């Protein structure tokens, strides 16, 4: 018999290394020939979109387009250490470091503009489309390109920025402390169909709401949500290394099953925005949280469908049939 049920899972997730460990990101910004901006920063692109979102944060500060930003992040001899691409920390930590570095570069650019245009002060200067303009008398203007002509070679304009996340070490006996910051939240609901004759669980519907503080790039964020959902789905229903006496028996893709396109469904993804004051433009990381509420939602939906609690993952057909028999 096919039975339908729905379930919800919610979670919170603390960003960063945690527990007071110095969680530092660094970035160096240079004004390059032709007026481009170079970011030198050890931010790793693992597929999540750091190459793009980090440029967006820099472009926003400096009034440029993403195409005007060069990012050098692949060579340890050329870039400062910005920590690992992990702990959902790049958007928040490294994003902050890049934003601070770019703000310092802006100060530098304003100072040089004051000199180049013989102004009394840097007050009233604004950045727009690769130019520094005196907002209330726009005839006074100089482009990044012109400044780059003046400041080249050894005189190259450079600024740097560093961000250290604020967390505290927890008490060893009580675990009291502020181990992570910021926290990200989410909720996911799914509807499943459980075949009580075969033990197969099919997804029918899903709605997934993810707090992002602010979405730097909504399309990239949705991609993370879809991907996190798929990974959560595999975790809940398929993935099993089948370890016996220390040996993984399911050690390749013909045995270790991960979701295919046929296993996925279209998901109603909702990005919830509530800017975090200590984050770059309010943006919190979401890389890890996006997989967390999925499996619990599926487990709760299975119970709603058939009245059986599955307390051990993954919910393979065999395990589900066994649980159904035992509950009868």
């Amino acid at each position: 018999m096919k039975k339908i049920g729905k379930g919800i899972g919610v979670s919170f997730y603390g960003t960063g290394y945690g527990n007071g460990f110095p969680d530092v990101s660094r970035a160096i910004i240079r004004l390059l020939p032709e007026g481009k901006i170079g970011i030198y920063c050890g931010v790793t692109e693992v597929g999540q979109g750091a190459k793009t979102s980090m440029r967006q944060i820099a472009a926003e500060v400096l009034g440029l387009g993403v195409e005007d930003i060069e990012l050098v992040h692949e060579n340890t001899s050329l870039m400062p250490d910005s920590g690992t691409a992990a702990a959902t920390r790049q958007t928040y930590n490294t994003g902050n470091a890049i934003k601070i570095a770019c703000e310092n570069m802006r100060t530098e650019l304003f100072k040089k503009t004051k000199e180049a245009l013989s102004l009394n002060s840097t007050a009233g200067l604004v950045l727009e489309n690769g130019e520094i303009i005196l907002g209330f008398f726009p005839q006074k203007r100089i482009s990044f390109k012109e400044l780059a002509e003046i400041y080249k070679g050894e005189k190259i304009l450079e600024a740097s920025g560093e961000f250290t996340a604020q967390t505290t070490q927890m008490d060893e006996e009580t675990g009291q402390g502020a181990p992570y910051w910021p926290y990200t939240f989410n909720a996911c609901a799914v509807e499943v169909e459980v075949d009580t004759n075969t033990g197969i669980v099919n997804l029918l519907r899903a709605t997934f709401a993810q707090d992002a503080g602010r979405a730097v790039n909504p399309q990239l964020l949705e991609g993370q949500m879809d991907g996190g959902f798929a990974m959560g789905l595999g975790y809940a229903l398929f993935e099993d290394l089948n370890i016996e006496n220390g040996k993984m028996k399911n050690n390749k893709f013909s045995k270790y099953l991960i979701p295919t396109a046929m296993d996925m469904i279209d998901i109603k993804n909702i990005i919830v925005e509530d800017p975090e004051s200590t984050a770059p433009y309010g943006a919190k990381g979401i890389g890890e949280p996006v997989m967390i509420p999925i499996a619990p939602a599926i487990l709760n939906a299975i119970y709603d469908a058939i009245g059986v609690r599955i307390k051990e993952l993954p919910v393979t057909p065999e395990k589900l049939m066994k649980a159904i028999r035992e509950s009868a």
Partner: protein
Amino acid sequence: MKLNVVGKSVVRVDAYSKVTGSALYPQDIYLDDMVYGKTLRSERPHAKINIDVTEAEEIQGVLKVFTYKDVPKENIHGVVLKDHEVFASEKVIRIGEPIAFIVAESEKVCDEAYNKVKIEYEDLPAVFDPVEAMKEDAPKVHGESNIIFNYKLRHGDIEEGKKKCKYIVENTYYSPMVEHAFLQPEAGLAYLEEDGTLVVAVATQYPHYDREEIAINLGIPEENIKVINTAVGGAFGAREDISPQIHLALAAYTLKRPIKVIYSREESFLTHSKRHSMTMKYKTGADEDGFLQYMEAEIIGDSGAHCSWAINVLRKAGVHATGPYVIPNVKVDTYAVYTNNPFTGAMRGFGATQVPIAHEQQMDILAEKLGMDPIEFRMKNIFRLGSTTATGQVLVDSVPLDKCIEEVNEHFNFSEEAKEGAI
């Protein structure tokens, strides 16, 4: 705040190279005069070893077979504790642990030599169940105890909390080890530049960390090493620990030839960490008005043969054990334990992915007992702006969990259905 670029779905800057096939992952880089490497790995979970590479090194085309004896300095790495040998020296502690690195003119010769490396195993008693491993008389993986770490969370008074509860539900949940299964298996190259700089090109999550571990094990300054992070074919936490980096660096540095290694999918499964399996014993209680008053949990995580991030993962599991709920009286103990299983480390969610398997089911079970729908019960107890977590942290900014739940409920109407069901 008016924003021009942030908040826009700007097209990925790396998408063009990836749809045209021109993005370079380590396996796509070919160097002149390049040799190949192949890692010989333990087939036993716990055994003393004796290695003889003589016959393998005599094969034509084999340049060298590296073992622990060839590592100039430490022969040890690890993201938190240094407990991961570059090559197993006296004993192996898991299946898949590197023992030797064969370097030859071609992959074919590497394969030939692989079968000629003689490894004598003398099996030692092994332990695979973390609960067993916690006992004093269990075989030890490293040192004196298999318990790496115990995180203790104490908040409020659990005895008082229990008294306030109308319902307490008690269950044990289990979440297994799982695999990251990124699509690009580990691969890498190493070579010397003309000025002697040692270059290692890999797909990694943290190039500066890799550089540090290479420097420590080779005994050369970090300034003389350059780690190039190529295109990375997914990571999810599995590229945080060292895989081929030190082997490649050692070979290129010693032999002064460019070298490349590509792992097969099976080897990829063997080389990197897994998600910690966790056994999670939970007791959760609520009062008659539906407010959570008490929670107690014991969580045991299997670290396998190396610590990797176990301390941080089990700490994170402990901090997130309550779920996003205000619970005034909480006691949590989490343990990270060595076994002779595959080692576990970072994987998306890092300890906070396992605990919701328990706390979210506990919530639904309690809601049912209280005659509440899952939304109503959660909304009574969730973190909101100003809430205090079980570690005593005050959430002073950006806590839109209520909004997330409302958005989801709008499409699913949990409350409506529960009412209908009641009639």
